[in-house]
């Protein structure tokens, strides 16, 4: 009688990567709903087009690299990249803008480094930064909430006609950056400003906060990186908060609820591949991103700095890992640097 000999582990879990990616996609739902409520179907079209393009690019480059196409497409990681990228782009982006961003994210950001788990940079942020520095005009025109209809939006996506000037506006962070003469109280009457942050973006940020807290509750990531980033942003904006004059850098609440703060804190900084590894390392990583975001917003050349901050800290992640290697039980902490007293 032949007994089947089976070695451990005996418990077989579901495809873990796929489950994680599906949870992340589910957590973006509040943000997607709010964006759709504010800007119409633009975000949904962006997402659908970005997902289709990303799947196409991923399949093509996997084929070129002679890797199993179906296996890697099913893990859903490329869909997360595409969705995060589509959420970061302005609604009703022209089709070629989304295409280039997705292509750069999947091909240059992810697959050329070796695919899932090998990329030193966050692919979605690579794609975003490529189009941000290449096409600044298209990337900084956000539609006014509740203005663009589906017809006009589709025409803009297909490049037939551009959106009328009255339907687009600079973001609140942009207005604050170029502002030279108005005090903060006067700025609040600017149509780009809402109650606490940018109009629209304050609600979007709260929605992403809700989605992020859901992921935190599901223990998909630890609290270290997001808390580090948000805390650093609050501390920086408190320290450099120079009142409400015309040279003001904005209040902490404004910085928390404007731009891509919450999307970055809970969906980008928490990327397990391109951030630091240990808990302390992730805390330092998050703090670094928070500081850089504020520095770029207050004194840099771009209105928002989440993408640049994340990419710069991605560069620093190996160094952070080197200095924050946890002590193994039973061993003393490894000494680093010059050995003194020998």
């Amino acid at each position, binding site marked *: 009688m032949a007994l089947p000999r089976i070695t451990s582990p005996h418990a077989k879990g579901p495809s873990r990567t796929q489950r994680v990616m599906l949870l992340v996609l589910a957590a973006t739902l509040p943000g997607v709903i709010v964006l759709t409520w504010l800007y119409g179907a633009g975000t949904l079209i962006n997402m659908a087009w970005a997902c289709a393009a990303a799947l196409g690019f991923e399949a093509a480059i996997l084929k070129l690299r002679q890797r199993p196409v179906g296996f890697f497409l099913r893990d859903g990681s490329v869909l997360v990249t595409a969705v995060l990228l589509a959420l970061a782009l302005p609604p009703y982006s022209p089709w*070629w803008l989304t295409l*280039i961003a997705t292509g750069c994210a999947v091909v*240059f950001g992810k697959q050329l480094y070796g695919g899932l788990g090998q990329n030193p940079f966050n692919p979605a942020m690579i794609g975003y930064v*490529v189009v941000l*520095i*290449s*096409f*600044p005009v*298209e990337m900084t025109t956000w539609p006014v909430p509740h203005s663009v209809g589906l017809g006009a939006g589709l025409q803009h996506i297909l490049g037939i006609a551009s959106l009328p000037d009255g339907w687009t506006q600079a973001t609140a962070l942009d207005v604050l950056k170029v502002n030279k003469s108005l005090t903060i109280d006067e700025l609040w009457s600017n149509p780009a400003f809402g109650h606490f942050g940018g109009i629209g973006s304050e609600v979007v940020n709260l929605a992403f906060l809700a989605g992020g807290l859901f992921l935190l509750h599901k223990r998909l990531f630890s609290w270290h990186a997001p808390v580090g980033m948000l805390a650093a942003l609050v501390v920086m904006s408190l320290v450099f908060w120079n009142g409400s004059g015309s040279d003001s850098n904005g209040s902490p609440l404004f910085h928390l609820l404007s731009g891509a703060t919450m999307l970055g804190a809970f969906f980008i900084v928490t990327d397990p591949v391109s951030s630091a590894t240990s808990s302390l390392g992730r805390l330092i990583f998050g703090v670094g991103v928070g500081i850089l975001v504020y520095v770029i917003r207050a004194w840099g050349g771009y209105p928002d700095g989440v993408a640049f901050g994340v990419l710069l800290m991605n560069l620093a992640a190996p160094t952070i890992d080197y200095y924050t290697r946890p002590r193994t039980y039973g061993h003393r902490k490894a000494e680093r640097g010059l050995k003194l007293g020998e």
Partner: protein
Amino acid sequence: MSAPSYRELTVNGLWKNNPALVQLLGLCPLLGVSNSAVNALGLGLATMLVLTCSNIGVSLVRGVVNTAVRLPAFVMIIAALTTCIELLMQAFTYELYQILGIFIPLITTNCVILGRADGFAAKHNPLIAGFDGLVMGIGFCLVLVVLGGLRELFGTGALFANMHLLFGPIAADWQITLFSDYKGFLLAILPPGAFIVLGLLIALKNRIDQQLAERARATQPAAPATSRRVRVTGVIE
């Protein structure tokens, strides 16, 4: 050392040992000025001239220069030639001279030139050394022009703009606009674009080499079967 044949030198300079694609030398000007075809061609021609002349010069003095001080001597020759080129460009293509700026004097420190001077010209006669400099220079110039052309095409949607800076008024309308309402892909013009496009060119070259090797292996008759021996070490397949 026996001198390599001219055919061998040509294959090496243009493809097998291309200074830009294989040796990856002289990357600073290669990446710095390749944002348009005209800039690339201007600097490529200047580098090619200096490389050819410096190889001849170095080869001529190779018998009289002490080994210990050869590098300073070679650099002096290269610097003198670069100064000549710089003055010539200032005289005949003044606008291009201004655009290329610091990269013309920097030809002196181009690793391709010093590398060929010390690695090849110092060991061979002037004729063959000059030929080596010429084909190496052409190889470098070709990659530079392809890189510049691709970046210009991706970045602006047009090719060969401002060629009159190099060839005079007859070249004023050489510009080819491939896409009329092109938005301008700024990244290709910026420094990161140079790294990305050069990386793609190197990948393409390696891929072509790989396919050529595969084809050569396929056409070669299989090795005759010899006596098989039992393997006692190594990987069991």
